[in-house]
């Protein structure tokens, strides 16, 4: 993170694209932070079962897959979203290393999302709307990473 970016382009075009790209990513990640934090608080206050009026939701969030040891998965999700948010912010300000970390973090979250969707579909046979919303956010972030301009690839 200490290595400040060296501008490779003299024009302001790529820089503006980069700013817009990572700003959108940071905003998406911020929504994820809010959602995962909300679920973590619900878990810690013992209100896992109260989940938007859906019994499927409580089945997923109350399952053994919803935590790793004593740690709720939503807390890890909040941490992951916050990392993505931080990397995106640093990338906006031109930190090259942050872009690489951003890509790896999104990739890791994408893989985790696929696993969790599999668990919901084939093991729990129930879908939680919060989890689906989070999956949509990750797909959006992954879509951004895949579709970003070639000049932004590190």
């Amino acid at each position, binding site marked *: 993170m200490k290595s400040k970016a060296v501008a490779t382009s003299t024009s302001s075009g790529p820089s503006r694209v980069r700013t817009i790209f990572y700003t959108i990513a940071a905003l998406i990640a911020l929504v994820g932070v809010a959602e995962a934090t909300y679920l973590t608080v619900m878990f810690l206050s013992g209100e896992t079962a109260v989940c938007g009026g859906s019994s499927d939701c409580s089945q997923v969030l*109350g399952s053994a897959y919803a935590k790793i040891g004593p740690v709720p998965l939503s807390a890890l999700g909040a941490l992951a979203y*916050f990392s993505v948010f931080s990397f995106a912010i*640093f990338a906006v300000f031109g930190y090259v290393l942050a872009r690489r970390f951003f890509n790896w973090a999104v990739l890791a979250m994408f893989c985790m999302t696929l696993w969790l969707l599999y668990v919901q579909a084939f093991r729990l046979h129930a879908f939680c709307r919060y989890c689906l919303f989070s999956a949509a956010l990750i797909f959006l972030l992954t879509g951004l990473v895949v579709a970003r301009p070639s000049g932004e690839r590190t």
Partner: protein
Amino acid sequence: MKRTLPFIIVIGVGLITLGSATYFYKTKHPGSAPLKIARTETDAGGTVHVLGPEKAAVTIEEFGDFQCPPCGRLCEPLNELQKKYNFRLVYRNFPLPMHPHAREAACAAEAAGKQGKFWQMHDLLFKEQAVWSHSTEPKALFNAYAGMLQLDLSRFRSDLESPEVLEKIDKDQQRGTEIGVKTTPTLFLNNEAVAPENTNSDKLPEMVENMIKGNKPSS
């Protein structure tokens, strides 16, 4: 300024998130004192479902919902614990509104209770929770469970919707609401609420053991 700005943004958002989470958590837990209840007395009419001896040193009173997955996971360990330590276990119905079949399941358990098989139906409903929870016709399954328990089916069917059964569930729920129960399972160990993070098969045995070793009678 441009060098420090990303640090300021990231730290600022981190602090706001932590602050909001703490505030939200505190609104959910306004008081630090745990909920307390008066001891449930075993009545001769059998309207309160109790396992274990009346004068046991430890009493656990559970407010449960038959469609709640954590309650289902707690059922077997709690039964094993009860057999091991022979404490007094009280079950109260607290069907949550977001579980569409929870109230019907509570009725089935109460209807079985009228034929002396509440705990058998209680265990069966939790064991088969994943099946009837997703059924569009859970009553048909409850009837099948009643058959498995060799209940008088015509009596079971009429008891399912009897005002007496519905009133019993309402009473349990009212008791829970009055003492501040909001979620399930909520357990009271010797009349004091067990923290949600301890309401699991890992921590509960230790708490019961400590209570028995301390020989603190349930007053």
